[in-house]
């Protein structure tokens, strides 16, 4: 039996098939106050009614600022926190990760890759020990010699050769890029269907980010896994992900094809995000004045959560949360600007003017709640 046969055991979903699906996922964290009077007990609405589908062999980016709930959402998909509402569906079955066995089954299919490679390794264990633990969990029947060859194979898959040069080392002896590759190898040990990469390159140097991202892309395509790429860098989403979802204050505000979302953003928040990103290639100075702050998730604004910062806010924005409006092929935005009436049309004209766009967008089609 070759090592390749040992590590690739799961039958793969067809490319493009839905693998992991979040349906109206909601998470509230309770901040404990006084245990007797219950005063000061507050609820943080970290993730609010988020629905997102991850497809086999496809990269989906989840973009947002810190505190927007994007990392919490990734951890909910990994079943590291219990859900407050909604459900996570894996290949058509609702995930129930209560209890040790079922939780371990779930994590063997859905693997999380963390942001900080220096922090995500036990500092007193060698790389070999760390990898061996993961291999032991997911290849229970393997003999010690087989385990060793599995580890070598894993390291080869993340382009770390020869393996012996890395296995004997402690985490502090390796560079950030090497460690992040090893954490990908650790995730591969489970032979997962889904990778949840939480800012996998943001703590790495710019010159080595590309290598790690390309590795993730290669693995996604070769192994037909679904990849959720959580990031604050919308420019990297444009290059790396097929689809992009934008999150603000715990809610998805826009979703669509990455090129479409970055080049033709519909939601005012996405537009602000793009206008704020440093980009010397930008020709015109189309700056939007923004003095706002992300809202408190304990007491979020009524209606649309972005309305206190939005330059195009209308009266209804503070009263009623906007539904999804399909604005273009596969692109939707949760924004009242795309309602089909005169006030919204005026707002769209103002929007096009402010961003120096020639064409004024058309009104969107409201998407019924059940449709994703």
């Amino acid at each position: 039996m070759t090592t390749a046969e040992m590590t690739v055991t799961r039958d793969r979903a067809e490319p493009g098939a839905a693998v992991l699906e979040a349906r109206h996922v909601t998470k509230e964290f309770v901040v404990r106050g006084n245990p007797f009077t219950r005063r000061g007990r507050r609820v943080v609405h970290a993730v609010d009614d988020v629905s997102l589908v991850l497809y086999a062999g496809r990269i989906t980016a989840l973009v947002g600022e810190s505190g927007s709930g994007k990392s919490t959402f990734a951890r909910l998909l990994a079943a590291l926190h219990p859900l407050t509402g909604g459900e996570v569906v894996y290949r058509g079955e609702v995930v129930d990760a209560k209890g040790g066995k079922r939780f371990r089954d779930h994590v063997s299919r859905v693997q999380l890759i963390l942001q900080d490679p220096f922090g995500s390794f036990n500092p007193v264990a060698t790389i070999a020990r760390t990898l061996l633990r993961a291999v032991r969990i997911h290849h229970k029947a393997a003999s010690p010699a087989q385990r060793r060859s599995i580890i070598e194979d894993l390291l080869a898959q993340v382009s770390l050769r020869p393996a012996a040069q890395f296995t004997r080392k402690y985490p502090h002896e390796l560079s950030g890029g090497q460690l992040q590759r090893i954490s990908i190898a650790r995730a591969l040990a489970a032979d997962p269907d889904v990778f949840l990469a939480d800012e996998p390159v943001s703590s790495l140097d710019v010159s080595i980010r590309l290598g790690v991202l390309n590795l993730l892309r290669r693995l996604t395509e070769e192994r037909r896994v679904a990849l959720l790429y959580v990031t604050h860098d919308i420019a990297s989403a444009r290059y790396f992900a097929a689809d992009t979802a934008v999150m603000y204050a715990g809610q998805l505000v826009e979703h669509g094809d990455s090129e479409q979302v970055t080049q033709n953003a519909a939601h005012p928040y996405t537009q602000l995000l793009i206008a704020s990103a440093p980009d010397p290639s930008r020709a015109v100075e189309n700056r939007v004045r923004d003095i706002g702050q992300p809202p408190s998730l304990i007491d979020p604004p009524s209606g649309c959560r972005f309305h206190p910062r939005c330059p195009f806010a209308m009266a209804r924005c503070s009263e009623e949360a906007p539904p999804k409006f399909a604005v273009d092929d596969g692109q939707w935005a949760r924004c009242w600007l795309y309602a089909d009436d005169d006030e919204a049309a005026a707002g769209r004209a103002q929007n096009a003017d402010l961003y120096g766009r020639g064409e004024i967008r058309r009104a969107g089609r409201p998407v019924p709640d059940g449709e994703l």
Partner: protein
Amino acid sequence: MAINVATVQEVESTDSVVSSRFGWLRAFRRPLTLTGVIIVAIFCVLAIIGPFIAPYDPSSVSKATLQPPSPEHWLGTTQTGQDILSQMLYGTQVSMIVGVLAAVFATVLSVVVGLAAGYLGGISDEILSLLANIFLVIPALPLTVILAAYLPKTGSFGIILVISITGWAWGARVLRAQTLSLRKRDFVEAARATGERTTSIIFRDIFPNQVAVIAASFLGTVTGAILTQASLAFLGLTNVTEWSWGTILYWAQVSSALLTGSWWWFVPAGAAIALLGTGLSLVNFGIDEFINPRLRQAGIGTRKAQRAQVRPTRLKAPRRSRREARASVSGGRTGDVILQINGLEVDYVGEGSTTKAVNDVTLTLRRGEVLGIAGESGSGKSTLAHAITRLHKPPAWISAGEMLYQRDDGTVVDILTMGDEELRRFRWEELAIVFQSAMHALNPILSIGKQIEDAITAHRPSMSASERAARVLELLDLVGIQTDRAGAYPHELSGGMRQRAMIAVGLALDPEIIVMDEPTTALDVVIQRQIVEKIIELKDRLGFSVIFITHDLSLLIEMSDTIAVMYAGRVVELADAKEFYRNPRHPYSRGLLGSFPTLSGPKRELAGIPGSPPDLRHPPSGCAFNPRCPLAFDRCTVVVPPLFALSGEAEWRQAEAACLLYEGGGTVPDRASVHETDERLIEEAR
């Protein structure tokens, strides 16, 4: 501070050739630790073989009463003629057994309670913590005395029990706190995400990282237990016919050895307790180096580095004489130069090696200029920022160079030769610093208004209170903080507001230069944009110069007038920002620019740079970039290229690049041809 440490780690973190298999043996190289280990080992051996080598039965009486030390009785005899050496040898066994066993029980108890409380959390944490707290507030000695008095006086077991019951609570609390902090660490989360069982996480992730603390608390408890046993025995609360160091002291006391001047009776036991305690403490100090693989190799904290700390800032002769340098400051087109750095070198002094973090850096800064310094981790950019402000800490020290600052009145001073008082005035009044982590740089217990006022009070004592208050409000308004927030504490402000407050503190005394070390890195892009625009607006209004340091090249190009790219401690390219973006010359700069995804315009192929940044402890020969360079040729591994002047447009300064491709002035290839060759070579290199 945090930044300083990070910089050291940057330098240390890359590959090391040292195999760490037997690295823990290196801990013995510390003489103090070695002494401690030897002392403890001797006592352990004596405890085992003591009864066999004892020359006499410790309880047998003889006629030689109260004899001082003699060849027959090396440590003399007691009032009843018993041999004190034999008593000591038997006593070592009992005292050590009591000490070690009590410490084992107490440590096991504290580990179980501490880890369970810390990791499980919730209600079990509350109950266990309450228990530990109750045991902590019970006065230990009286309880011990009472318990010892009630427990049967047969053997040492009762004593061991008493000591462990009263001694575990402190360790449990420390371990609980440690576990709580470890539980939140990423590698524990990573282990959970891999599918590890809770027990496996506790025993393999949490426990090994606490071994140092556990070992330290164990050794401390051994000392404590031996002392407690001695005290109890001395008070006569144990079986006084069983020989231990305590009972020897008891009998010496009962027989008035002090009054009769028979020092040999009580001194050996007292000395043994003191010596063993010292030995254990010495081992305790060194214990971290046994456990922590990072400390085993790290050069920080070693004596050599500490020596560098006390070394005064006397420097090797600078490369250029003062007169020449001054001429260059005031002469020609550079009349508005405000800061001139010449041949600056900063070393990290480690054990047996010196790492050059900043290597022969020469830079000029003009009035009103924004100089951007770009570089990856380990490139020396943060070290440079700290050196410019002279805030660098050991093991970093400036080994060569000069930093000439030109005052408004035309006088020139070298920042490196300033005395403490002069330096204190220079900082903030002429040069201010804004760091990455505003949360750590601001004092959490003072309101931001008060902190700004403090900076003014310290430097402008003559200013009246009302003037100061007006100035504080003016500054807050300047950086865009609502003036009614002056009474807010740092934790009440968002990250962006804190960074604004830091900038307000920096601007309080109208400095001429502001050094900003990654001031926006911890912030989100939207907030970053607000801050950067504010900085530029203030610069245009107030006319100060900025040294802006970041790894984000896109941001740097947008906001800087000129850009210096650092690689492995050297400046490899220096150019106007616009020219740099249009036509980067150094292959590293090109690789860096080619690694950034763009938001507008058509998508282009991202190239990236193969390999990883060099280990500064073992830098490559010749040009430090040559192992990663797609255009490297033979001579690149031999010659360290200096900065060559380049052609092209220049508004602030003529572009320069440290690359042999541009050697020989006139033969600088133009953009198009170089670009073509690049593309081809990069393609081939793949």
